[in-house]
């Protein structure tokens, strides 16, 4: 398969926008996504399928929480931390939220510097993103440890509805796995950027093909998605 043409050709500019463009793109009997390379289209379709996975988790959580007759444990108290003798509600989760948002910010700028061929800034920002991500996972490990010590299990907990534990471990566990995988790939791609693989045309160790700076944007889309999922988990599981 030949590589799809970059979206900045005259051909791309000739395409109309709006609804007319939407209909024209889909009925063009060619590739439908004129502005996106195949890589971008595929990562988006992957993210769409991942959206459905997390949607199903949050939906099952909603279903068991609405249908249980036992009281639901109050997340505000369950996730409170005592700092300097004062009990602050949900403080760890709030910190994790800010860390993940910051990592999204550095990632967005890494994508930008990647397209500007500023590989040092791009790699440093990706490393910063990975550090934020790793600290997020670390805090999550702390949170899991704390809750397990307090007796939370997938089949019960000391405060109320037994489904609390299974929802918590499933949803945050799956999200944490996504973050961990993201950190690993961030490190791999940051190394490639740092080494200048996408300038020198060095071939990848796995695919034996030359990479492009577009991979930084693909990585960014995955990372922002992980942040996006956390926005929903934070609102629906921790704050509700």
């Amino acid at each position, binding site marked *: 398969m030949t590589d799809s043409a970059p979206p900045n050709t005259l051909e791309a500019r000739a395409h109309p926008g709006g609804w007319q463009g939407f209909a024209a793109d889909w009925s063009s009997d060619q590739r439908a996504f004129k502005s996106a390379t195949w890589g971008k289209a595929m990562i988006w379709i992957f993210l769409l399928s991942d959206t459905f996975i997390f*949607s199903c988790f949050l939906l099952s959580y909603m279903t068991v929480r609405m249908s249980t007759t036992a009281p639901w444990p109050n997340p505000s108290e369950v996730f409170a931390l005592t700092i300097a003798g004062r009990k602050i509600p949900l403080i760890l989760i709030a910190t994790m939220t800010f860390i993940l948002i910051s990592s999204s910010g550095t990632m967005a700028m890494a994508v930008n510097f990647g397209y500007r061929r500023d590989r040092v800034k791009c790699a440093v920002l990706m490393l910063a993103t990975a550090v934020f991500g790793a600290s997020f996972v670390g805090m999550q490990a702390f949170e899991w440890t704390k809750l397990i010590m307090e007796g939370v299990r997938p089949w019960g907990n000391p405060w109320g509805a037994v489904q609390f534990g299974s929802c918590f471990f499933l949803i945050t566990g799956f999200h944490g796995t996504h973050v961990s995988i993201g950190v690993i790939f961030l490190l791999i791609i940051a190394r490639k950027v740092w080494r200048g693989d996408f300038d020198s045309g060095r071939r990848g160790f796995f695919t034996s093909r030359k990479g492009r700076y577009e991979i930084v944007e693909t990585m960014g889309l995955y990372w922002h998605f992980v942040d996006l999922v956390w926005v929903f988990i934070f609102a629906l599981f921790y704050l509700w």
Partner: protein
Amino acid sequence: MTQESAHVEGQQHPIKLYLLVWGWLFVLSTCSYLVDYFGLEGYLRWSLILLFMVVKAGLIVAVFMHMAWERLALTYAILVPPGAVLLFVAIMAFESDYTHFTRVTFFASGQVSAQNQAVEYQKSSGSEH
């Protein structure tokens, strides 16, 4: 900024835009945290949580993920299907409401043995750890 001019080479936008969105995400997260900190309750709490959630998600998708500059063919292909999830939410809300109703009716209708069974089950499953 038109759709096409953003595609000169990949996605290039001023860094300032990302910093601005980053700042807004911080403000919105702080707001949603404060909803919990001040212990707002009921519909006020739920509507504020959902509002901040949707605005944050919109900012991330539109700017950080560059959806605002993609062509509609891609935007709709990705953003319309999750709409089906909303229908699913509605279906499951009805379903769980009904389950809750039957549980309340069943447990409260004098069928003591069944209720005891449920309590015993909860006790035994709670003591397993």
